[in-house]
């Protein structure tokens, strides 16, 4: 079984996001970039399945600018066998990414495609679902547990009401939740080995995919500042303030 894992390069989750002064987007210069956190879980799970002898190859793929190669390289350092970078400039929307992934799936013929449930930058949570539609494959989203069966997967999903367990036939798309596993650290020798693993570079345009954004972004702005809190002396005062000032009761 072959697993394709999609990873995205995003602003590191510890970095405080700054909105550009003119409201056209967020500041990405001089900002630390990392792998989208649930994508780390996706890679980890794929590698674990391979280590358990249930998969033969793990291929990491990223779509984006040249530097997204670092994200692929990181996936190689924790156990992916080889990488693919599909180069595209600027914002690449989920639809474009899923079309690219569709082309790569047709070429690579994996049995499973894993990715994070959503990216922490645009929070779209669409790519896996769109890819499932394009390929007409079953999908298991928000996976927090995956059991690999003969010709199917048993997947536990994190849903609003609790946990839902489903079975999907292979080939399938799985989008991974942070609870799926604890991603391993890349060891120094493995980082070195990863430097020698191949990363195939393809231009999105060569796949015949137009990555031009379809969504008009009108404005990006910071959330309103939270007002400073106050201490109240008594329950009466609290109730009075909730009634007259906050007007919530």
């Amino acid at each position, binding site marked *: 079984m072959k697993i394709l894992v999609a990873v995205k390069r995003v602003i*590191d989750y*510890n*970095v*405080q996001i*700054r909105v550009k*002064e003119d409201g056209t987007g967020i500041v990405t*210069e*001089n*900002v*630390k970039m*990392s792998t989208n956190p649930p994508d780390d879980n996706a890679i980890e799970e794929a590698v674990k399945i391979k280590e358990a002898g249930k998969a033969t190859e793990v291929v990491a793929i990223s779509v984006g600018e040249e530097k997204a190669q670092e994200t692929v390289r990181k996936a190689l350092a924790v156990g992916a066998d080889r990488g693919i970078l599909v180069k595209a400039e600027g914002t690449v929307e989920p639809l474009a990414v899923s079309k690219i992934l569709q082309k790569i799936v047709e070429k690579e013929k994996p049995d499973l495609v894993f990715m994070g449930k959503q990216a922490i930058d645009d929070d779209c949570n669409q790519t896996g679902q769109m890819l499932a539609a394009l390929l007409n494959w079953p999908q298991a989203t928000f996976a927090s547990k995956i059991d690999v069966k003969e010709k199917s997967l048993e997947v536990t999903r994190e849903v609003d009401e609790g946990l839902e367990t489903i079975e999907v036939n292979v080939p399938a798309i799985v989008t991974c939740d942070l609870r799926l596993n*604890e*991603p*391993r*650290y890349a*060891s*120094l*020798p493995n*980082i*070195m080995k990863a430097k020698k693993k191949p990363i195939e570079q393809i231009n999105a345009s060569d796949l015949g995919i137009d990555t031009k954004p379809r969504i008009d972004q009108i404005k990006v702005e910071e959330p309103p500042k939270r007002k400073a809190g106050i201490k109240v002396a008594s329950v009466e005062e609290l109730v009075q303030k909730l009634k007259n000032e906050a007007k919530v009761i």
Partner: protein
Amino acid sequence: MNREVMEYDVVIVGGGPSGLSTAIKLKQLDTNLNICLLEKASEIGAHILSGNVFETRALDELIPNWKELNSPIKTKVSKEKFLFLGKTKSLSWPTWLLPSVQQNHNNYIISLANLCRWLAEQAEALGVEIFPGFPASEVLYNDDGSVKGVATQDMGIDKEGNKKDGFEPGIELVGKVTVFAEGCRGHLGKQLIQKYELDKGKDPQQYGIGFKEIWEIDDKNHEKGLVMHTAGWPLDNNTYGGSFMYHAENKQVFLGYVIGLDYKNPHLSPFDEFQRFKTHPSIKKIIEGGKRISYGARALIEGGFQSLPKMYMPGALLVGCDAGTLNMPKIKGSHTAMKSGMIAAETIFDHFKSNKELSSFEEKFKASWLYKELYEARNVKPSFSWGLILGIIFTGIDQILFRGKLPFTLKHKHADHETLKLADEMPKINYPKPDNIITFDKTSSVYLTGTNHTDNQPVHLKLKDPNLPISYTLEKFDEPAQRYCPAGVYEVQKENNINKFVINSQNCIHCKTCDIKEPSQNIIWVTPEGGGGPKYGNM
């Protein structure tokens, strides 16, 4: 436990200007050398914090065509100002009356973090293997007592010291020569200085704490290329320190404050002095209407020539501010750190090629402009122990009239942890509350540093005696860690009327001030799990 071993010709610890220059120079001298460089930050530059007005002298020698290689050195200094601040007034000091070491017209305003990222690209292109996210946590020794290399930190250890699921053992990096370039108060450098008595016969090292904020300011207040320094308010005559304000590209100003860690009043809070400084009319008018986008702090070396330890030992060299090559009157340490790394590289090259001892570092160092620079600068900082006014008068005589050639060397008498007076004997300082426009509290400041340490790992700020902070330091000095820490790591909390010393180690921005200033030297800074700490951008 057996750890995996990797062998190199040279192992370099630390990806700052000195370590990277060592690596680049070595590769230029012999492209076949196997070199690896470890960096504790998640990426090169993420733990770098510096003013920075950059003198290109060392870089001109290392990479002469740096201008053609898209280096992040773009903003030439166009104008200089020096102000003495009174509480509300300021006096502008004519720059022609400044010693030449403090004149900057040939220098550039840069982000040292970005310069390091660029140097790392140059080094990687030459074949240096750079490993960010891997702190060297331990020195390895050969049976003959010489340095064998370093071991990286184990990853995935929980608070109690047990292995977690993702546990990844550290590995041993063995080098024919190891170069320590951890920066000011490196935690391995400190051990080596002790073990090999590298500071024997030298004055105690002197340190400062430096703060930096990056502001995006109004166009009308921005003068690209302007370099401004101040002395005076809010510090009193007996506290050494001053500010910098550098107008960089993209409407940014790099605003900072440095305070000597030899301050005496345990009630002093360096962070609050910096915040208060920004309320001075001559500063406020520039940043008003702007936005603070970055914050950080880092200890720096101020001891200079008299405190500079021997920089070689069996099997290893100590470079940059891990030893202490910063030039205090120049307020610059990047070019000197780079040069010390380059001298180290030449020493190592000779060592491999003609079996010369590493001690030949000393001759090369003494013959270099670096030595001359540090020698001539040596008397400035100690003269400020007489106070700001006498210090300035002496510095004028020493630097302008005699150009550092006075026939004597002033001494640094005390280590910084010895200078605090008892809390009862010193005046309390009432700092104004932050307005959240110009001045801020520590919490919102640390937030801007992007600092994170993986939860559930051992505390990396170790107490030799866990009771001492409450039983002694609190009583005698009102536990100054609460104030000197720029990130609010240390707190004294009252629980049921019992004082408790709390260490919020996840906030630590790796400045090392606690390791330096704690009066009983009770706090030991060790490396946390790799990649932890701040994530500075263009600091």
